[in-house]
């Protein structure tokens, strides 16, 4: 199928492209389940983002910013930026560890304006702050809510039920 191999070919040399333009930014590269994940150092995120959004790689669509909480990892909050290129149809995932005590990452809103609400949601539910974000307020929870619900150490809450199937 024509698109699949172009996707495959397009991805493998992506890491060399990034290495060429921003040396030392790429920490790791994982290829699994037909997807490519490139791990970037926390400080170089904005630089790599600007490069990827520009014509050679042309990942003009930032599909999603998701964050997973790994309490026992040094970087703790693992951010995943899903990028999609409208021209080549290639997908890549940028992975950034946001650090445990005061998780802070550069905001990519200057590069992709759609990140505005994604980052607000990650800040609201996970507590990762984004430097340079135009309007970092809570988006899902009431504004005076204490704590960040999606963190692993935050109880599920809700009413106590005598029989529960929580396996």
């Amino acid at each position: 199928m024509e698109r699949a191999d172009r996707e495959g070919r397009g991805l493998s040399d992506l890491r060399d492209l990034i290495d060429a333009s921003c040396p030392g930014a790429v920490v790791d590269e994982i290829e699994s389940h037909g997807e490519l994940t490139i791990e970037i150092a926390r400080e170089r995120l904005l630089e790599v983002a600007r490069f990827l959004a520009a014509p050679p790689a042309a990942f003009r669509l930032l599909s999603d910013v998701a964050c997973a909480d790994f309490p026992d990892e040094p970087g703790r909050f693992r951010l995943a930026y899903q990028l999609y290129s409208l021209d080549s149809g290639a997908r890549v995932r940028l992975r950034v560890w946001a650090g445990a005590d005061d998780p802070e990452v550069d905001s990519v809103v200057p590069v992709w304006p759609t990140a505005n609400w994604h980052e607000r949601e990650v800040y609201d539910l996970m507590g990762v702050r984004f430097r340079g974000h135009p309007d970092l307020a809570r988006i899902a929870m009431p504004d005076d809510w204490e704590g960040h619900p999606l963190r692993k150490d935050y109880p599920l809450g809700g009413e106590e039920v005598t029989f529960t199937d929580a396996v």
Partner: protein
Amino acid sequence: MALIPPPGTPIERAPRTDQSVDWDLKDPELADFVKRGLLMTTVDKISSWAQSSAIWPAGFGLACCAIEMMHMVTPRIDIARFGAELIRASPRQSDLMIVSGRVSQKMAPVLRHIYDQMLEPKWVISMGACASSGGVFNNYALVQGVDKIVPVDVYVPGCPPRPESLVEGIMLLQKKIGSGGQSSSRELWNAQTGKDAA
């Protein structure tokens, strides 16, 4: 790490603001008052017949149940047969608040505010499992049952309930209003406590 809070942690109920219009179902004096049965004057009979045959719902569309509530006014089920097809947007012109959908913690004060702004006599139908008891979602974000915020008259089960069961809920409410001179739970309470001079 305890994801479910240990047993015995108090279930915090949303603060009830307007104590005066509140009425708790477990109130003993009221129970025997209902048993004694209020003798209906003809005016009350006519007014409750009029109220029950034209209940205008304030479409409080929250989530999936709202879509099924919309089906209620469409050609197949057609709530117009019961005079309730006029879904009013503002609480000033509606008698019945159909809470259709899950009530989140951020929405609870707004729901209570709108309930307070509805004009008496007013009733509440809690449509669907999420409104009645939190449904499949038992977590930090939802109020586990809208009866923590507003006194509810009819609970309609289902997730989402079929439009037909919502129509049955409205028919139950009509029975509750039309028969035996009981208008709404609040009218009973006020009549009993003598607060209501007129």
